[in-house]
């Protein structure tokens, strides 16, 4: 299984990468939405999961979600926003655009794994 980690902060990508690798995902990194779309275009197999920051240069997370949802090839990807944008209106916008879940920074490893478990993305036996 593959997970795409999209964040302009390398440190945050590292944190998310550690978590998804713990869940037996192979992590693919991108520094913004545009780079993520470029990488997805090159991939023969679409990742099962994308963890997406909102505020990024070039293409933000909401724009990325909108692009993904408009592309039939990427329809099966589970999209999780991971962001400091914690207002109710922003959460509603992201979910309306097609995100499946919303995680607010700062988050603990356990909280992130619990969210992914709710989406059925945590293999049996992995302890959150």
């Amino acid at each position, binding site marked *: 299984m593959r997970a795409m980690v999209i964040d302009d*902060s390398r440190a945050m990508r590292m944190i998310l990468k550690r978590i998804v690798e713990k869940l037996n995902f192979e992590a693919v990194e991108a520094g913004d939405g545009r780079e993520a779309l470029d990488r997805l275009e090159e991939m023969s197999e679409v990742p099962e999961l994308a963890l997406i920051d909102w505020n990024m240069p070039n293409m933000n997370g909401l724009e990325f979600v909108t692009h993904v949802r408009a592309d039939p090839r990427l329809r099966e990807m589970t999209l999780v926003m991971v962001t400091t944008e914690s207002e109710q209106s922003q959460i509603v916008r992201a979910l309306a655009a097609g995100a499946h879940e919303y995680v607010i920074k700062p988050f603990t490893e356990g909280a992130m794994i619990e969210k992914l478990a709710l989406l059925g993305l945590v293999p049996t036996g992995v302890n959150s």
Partner: protein
Amino acid sequence: MSVEVEVNENDLAEMVEQVWSSYLDPEGLNPLIPTYDQNQPSEVHSSVSITGSWTGHVVYASSTLAANRAAAAFLAMEVDEVSVDDMSDVLGELANIIGGNVKAMLPPGALLSLPQVVLAPENTTIYPTAVRISGVYGIWDGEPVSISMWHSRSDNKEVDE
């Protein structure tokens, strides 16, 4: 029209505690110990600006060693392996996380900028027309760290009017 906002020291302290327990001190061994000294020294700082329904800045400042330790904690590496790029990246993300949570407490319509990082003391950056309205000042593992919130004075003026 601008709106009066109350994000006080307790609110900031709560956000800071969440950042520490999530990333910098998940074991709860090295909390930020308050000094209440808004003039404590710094060597590096980062900030995000907020515009819209409220205008101002959220600033994270620390010693270089504290910034390197923060980067080491985020990146799961030894402090002596941390590069300047690593430290800058983590300083920016800390300002982004705290600034984003401050923004959530503001009236709707506020926008958050991308972070800015300056490898120099906090007082080398001037925020024209802004005044410090609250802050959390402390020592983390023996090193100074502060988080402060600055409100644009022009915005205050509108409130007064």
